[in-house]
């Protein structure tokens, strides 16, 4: 029955947690370890960047040590061509065909470029990638991405890193109702209640990066999001009460003593 919990499955793979972790902005590998533990996440994004011979690297080790799957992203790509090549490099480097596809339109808003995004998604799906596109909150584009073969869609709540929450809950609800692949809210989340709302609106999962990694206490915030995602998911299953314009007494009227 639709009201019972179901597994969170993307491309046939069951994920332990509905909270997908973004590692951007993390201050150290130690903090990353603590955040992963507190979040319970089983999937985390990484960016594809030039090797710095000086750098220690180590992020892959931390993820592996904690049994967290690697989800490479194509952050920083402005064209389908760049994004496709980045995805191929990621597949080669990390031995995964999953990719969080990002193709942005400008550096101020970091909002997706719908046309380039769909183009890249079609190319990567054709080449056997498991594509999770970071998209805007457009229900039509979300379905076109699904039709192109994407394994999930990741609509934004607000621009990346703004912490403005879900600016257009109506669109997120429409996307969740109309897509058959999992909808994972991505970007814009600022605090725990935003994540709970996303799940209540019908999302299958939530991705959080900045709101955790740049919080004053990242590990504590990771735990907060873990509970919030579960709370929102359970609340949706439990079936909320309808909204009323006027009040409804929660104490019985009958039996009131005459005092």
């Amino acid at each position, binding site marked *: 029955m639709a009201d019972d919990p179901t597994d969170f499955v993307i491309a046939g793979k069951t994920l332990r947690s509905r909270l997908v972790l*973004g*590692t*951007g*902005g*993390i201050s150290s590998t130690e903090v*990353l370890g603590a955040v992963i533990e507190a979040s319970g996440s089983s999937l985390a*994004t*990484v*960016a*594809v*960047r*030039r*090797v710095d*011979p000086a750098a220690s*690297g180590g*992020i*892959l080790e931390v993820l592996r040590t904690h049994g967290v799957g*690697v*989800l*490479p*992203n194509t*952050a920083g790509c402005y064209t389908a061509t760049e994004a496709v*090549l980045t995805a*191929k*490099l*990621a597949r*080669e*480097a*990390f031995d995964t065909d999953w990719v*969080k596809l*990002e193709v942005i339109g400008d550096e101020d808003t970091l909002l997706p470029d719908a046309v380039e995004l769909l183009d890249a998604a079609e190319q990567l799906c054709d080449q056997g990638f498991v594509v999770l596109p970071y998209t805007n909150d457009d229900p039509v584009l979300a379905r076109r991405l699904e039709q192109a073969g994407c394994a999930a869609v990741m609509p934004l709540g607000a621009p990346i890193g703004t912490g403005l929450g879900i600016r257009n809950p109506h669109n997120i609800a429409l996307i969740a109702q109309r897509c058959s692949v999992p909808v994972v809210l991505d970007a814009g989340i600022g605090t725990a209640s935003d994540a709970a709302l996303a799940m209540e609106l019908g999302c299958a999962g939530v991705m959080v*990066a900045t709101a955790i990694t740049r919080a004053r206490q990242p590990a504590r915030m990771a735990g907060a999001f873990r509970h919030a995602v579960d709370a929102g998911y359970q609340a949706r299953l439990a079936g909320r009460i309808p909204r009323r314009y006027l009040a409804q007494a929660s104490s019985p009227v009958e039996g009131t003593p005459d005092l």
Partner: protein
Amino acid sequence: MVVNGAPRTLAPGATVSDLVSLWCPSPDGIAVARNREVVPRSEWPSTPLSPRDVVEIVTAAAGG
């Protein structure tokens, strides 16, 4: 040639494998693009580099 955006000279006949071993503590989690084409790990030893090549050597960074 150009490696990760900086000019670089390599011994004649050097391969991608040579470059990677020179460049990275470990080949683990590494990918290489040569002139905007991915060079599969299996072909690193057999792929010589020429002075006009533009090479990108990438790995994972915190992000997203």
